[in-house]
């Protein structure tokens, strides 16, 4: 209190009593930063403590042993600590000073790296050390050194956070499903805030998706309290031999209590960090399914299943479909479960359709919990049938290590003759109703290959790429020539139009002279309209600088005659072009040209 009071007085003097708000702010700032300021008053109580991080350590792994000195520093720091069976070597030190209610205290921690090469229980002895000439002693501590096996999941309390991948069983058969748990451990109560989706790498293993719900809890490991977050999934191998499930990665947001808060205002709020945790790997010893005693209906299912069948309708006409729901319950791998085999003795009397498989997402088996799956199948009976034949399912039970076959009971049916078919047949066969054998769809068997193909083989050209064949490029010449031909026609017309226009510009005759000369050139329609076109062009040139014709009839006449010229010169068939112009054409053209002439004279 003395310390704070003296500082208050100093600040008040500096900034004056007329600024109470500023004074208050200054006091708050000083309070927040006070733990960084040098100690003004240090407690005299010196204490030495030996700290062991975790009570168990694996052979070859590194642990931490620390000596904490309160209110003092060692006169001489030992470079190693002698302990039978253990190696303890000095690594470094860390000092801090705290001021609480004006009382300062200092703390220095000396860190030592700890390791052991042999299994057993070892004691770190009492260590006597001098502080300011006075001798203090640590307490003795016991440490268990153990040998970690491959895949050993012993929890490691020496780490502030870690991830563990666990499964209850690592010796499996092919297709045998087992639970797979991924658990994040973070030191401290309620430390885990959020976890992301796990990332697992596998070889020869199928990992079922992890459940979305996270089971959170607390666990004490070697005296340390940990928060845990567990997600559950399942896994099954598809290949025999040793299969490695590589370490999983999980992104996790949690409170890192080891991280320094920085003091001041920041220490008032909870600080979280996001880290990607990496788990241990798992090794599975996968055995192949035994070949002996394998039933003919076995299709790879591993587990222990029960079968229940429900069919409807049971009273029907021949040719009507029967819907069969086969419910499979039990513990095991439902992925590898194929539809039960329909044991129809006279397959020609049944038409069967492929069964539809539905795995209940709420009842998935992970190898421990029971699951449920439903197959829906349609079968159509025909002929003289009294019962629905049984269904059979075979699986390998990994617990008894034997194949098991389950067979349903035959279900009695009441099938009346198909009157529709009978009437259809009777209409064709003169009133004699006969039963028709339905076409069955037998299951294909791919156990062996088909025989060779005989007869004359079809020869094929092996030239892989068509563009490498000369004939391909020769063939491309045809459409190319066609395209060039069209382009040539277009070019020729363009030149013709261009040339014609140039000749007209050069002519020295005016519109009236051209009009008078028109009467003398009436050999072919092409020549006639060529002259008219020249005449119109000339008229257009001569009237360019003059007012536009007020009468629409003049413009319309000009356009009509001009369009006709274009059609005859460039669009009309050759026979039309070579014919002589008719009297009607000449009189119409003359009439329009006269009108144009009058307009030219008037303007």
């Amino acid at each position, binding site marked *: 209190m003395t310390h704070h009071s003296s500082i208050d007085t100093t600040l008040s003097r500096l900034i004056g009593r007329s600024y109470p708000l500023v004074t208050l702010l200054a006091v708050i700032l000083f309070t927040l930063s006070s733990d960084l300021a040098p100690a003004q008053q240090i407690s005299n109580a010196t204490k030495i403590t030996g700290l062991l991080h975790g009570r168990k350590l694996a052979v070859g792994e590194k642990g931490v042993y620390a000596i904490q000195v309160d209110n003092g520093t060692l006169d001489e720091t030992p470079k190693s600590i002698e302990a039978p069976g253990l190696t303890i070597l000095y690594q470094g030190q860390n000092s801090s000073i705290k001021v609480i209610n004006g009382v300062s205290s200092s703390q220095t921690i000396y860190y030592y790296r700890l390791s052991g090469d042999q299994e057993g229980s070892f004691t770190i002895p009492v260590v006597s050390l001098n502080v300011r000439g006075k001798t203090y002693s640590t307490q003795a501590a016991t440490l268990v050194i153990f040998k970690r096996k491959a895949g050993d999941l012993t929890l490691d309390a020496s780490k502030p956070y870690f991830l563990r991948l666990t499964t209850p069983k690592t010796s499996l058969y092919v297709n045998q499903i087992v639970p797979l748990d991924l658990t994040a451990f973070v030191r401290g109560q309620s430390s885990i805030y959020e976890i992301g989706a796990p990332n697992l790498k596998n*070889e*020869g293993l199928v990992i079922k998706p992890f459940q979305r719900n996270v089971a959170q809890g607390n666990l004490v490991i070697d005296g340390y309290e940990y928060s845990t977050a567990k997600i559950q999934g399942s896994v099954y191998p598809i*290949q025999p031999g040793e299969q490695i499930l590589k370490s999983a990665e999980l992104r996790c947001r949690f409170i890192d209590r080891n991280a320094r808060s920085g003091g001041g205002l920041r220490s008032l709020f909870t600080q979280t960090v996001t880290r990607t945790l990496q788990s241990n790997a798992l090794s599975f010893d996968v055995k192949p399914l035994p070949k002996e005693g394998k039933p003919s209906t076995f299709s790879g299912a591993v587990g222990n299943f029960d079968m229940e069948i429900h069919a409807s309708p049971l009273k029907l006409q021949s040719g009507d479909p029967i819907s069969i729901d086969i419910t499979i319950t039990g513990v095991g791998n439902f992925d590898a479960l194929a539809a039960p085999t329909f044991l129809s003795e006279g397959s020609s009397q049944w038409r069967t359709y492929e069964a539809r498989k539905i795995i209940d997402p709420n009842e998935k088996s992970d190898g421990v919990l029971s699951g449920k799956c439903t197959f829906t199948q349609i079968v159509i009976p025909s002929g003289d049938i009294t019962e629905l034949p049984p269904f059979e399912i075979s699986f390998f039970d990994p617990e008894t290590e034997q194949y098991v076959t389950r067979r349903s009971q035959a279900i009695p049916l009441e099938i009346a003759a198909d009157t529709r078919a009978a009437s259809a047949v009777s209409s064709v066969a003169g009133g004699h109703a006969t039963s028709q054998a339905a076409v069955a769809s037998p299951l294909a068997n*791919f*156990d*062996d*290959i*088909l*025989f*060779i*193909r*005989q*007869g*004359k*083989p*079809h*020869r*094929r*050209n*092996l030239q*892989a*790429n*068509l*563009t490498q*064949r000369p*004939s391909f490029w*020769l*063939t*491309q*010449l*045809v*459409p190319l*020539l*066609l*395209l060039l*031909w*069209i*382009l040539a*026609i*277009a070019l020729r*017309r363009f030149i013709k139009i261009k040339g014609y226009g140039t000749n007209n510009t050069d002519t020295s005759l005016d519109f009236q002279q051209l009009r008078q000369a028109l009467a003398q050139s009436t050999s072919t329609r092409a020549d006639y309209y060529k002259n008219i076109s020249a005449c119109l062009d000339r008229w257009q040139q001569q009237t360019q600088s003059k007012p536009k014709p007020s009468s629409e009839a003049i413009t319309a006449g000009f356009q009509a005659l001009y369009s006709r010229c274009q059609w005859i010169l*460039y*669009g009309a068939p050759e026979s039309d072009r070579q014919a002589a112009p008719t009297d009607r054409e000449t009189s119409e053209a003359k009439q329009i040209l006269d009108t144009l002439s009058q307009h030219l004279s008037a303007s």
Partner: protein
Amino acid sequence: MPISSHILISRLTWLCLCLMALPSFSWAANSATIDSYQKGNALYEAGKYQQAGKKYLDSFEQGLHSEELFYNLGNSFFKQENYGEASLWYRRALVLNPHMPEPRQNLRALKNRVGLLEFENKGYLKLLSHFRDNELISTLTLCIWIALLSLAAALWVNKLRPWRALLISVSILFALISVASILALKRYRQEVSPDNRAVITSANAVAQTAPVPDAKTVIELPPGSEVRIVTDSGPWQYIDIPGGIRGWVRSEALNLLWPPQATQTLPDKSNQPAG
């Protein structure tokens, strides 16, 4: 004397037909190759699969390229329990004739027996797998020409002016088909084309994480498995494996699917054993 347009078109059509008929002259039957093939069939029927296989290979080396030959060759390898080569020749038969059902069925039997890995073509890739590269190129070329000629005719042939709208519509339609064909061809060459595909023929092949002998195993590759070559780096091939996996495999552990060769197709650039 100028040639009228319909005469020119008829002459060009004849020229086109003649050019298209040119390759057929090279399809003349060769009796020697057929003899080897028939002898191979007789030996197969007698249960002498190894000798039958040799006759088939003779026939192949003499120039007979036929889906029936490739399929029978696959059968002879299957009977000798050389499942990798059997798968290779079945797949080659399917390249020649994608509609041939027998090799497809035998590949299923092979899959049941050795658990080989195969790429699964879904959606339109499945449709594309029924075509050959050349068929797609032909379609593309035809569509491009129709689009170009329709456009040219619509713009510059006066006699076709009444159908100008129709011709431009046809041109746009075929231009769109051409673009779709180009995209399909590109995807085909990436995913379906046999040119970059290979088949595992070694019995103990494994895909590894790196092109070094002591690298870790990614996955075991059963014989007959289908892979796609991403990078050829001499003694090692970087491959795409069905299931979205990649890895390195020794070159001598696999054979290129296409073009077919009787000997092991990839050059032996190292003397180290497969896998």
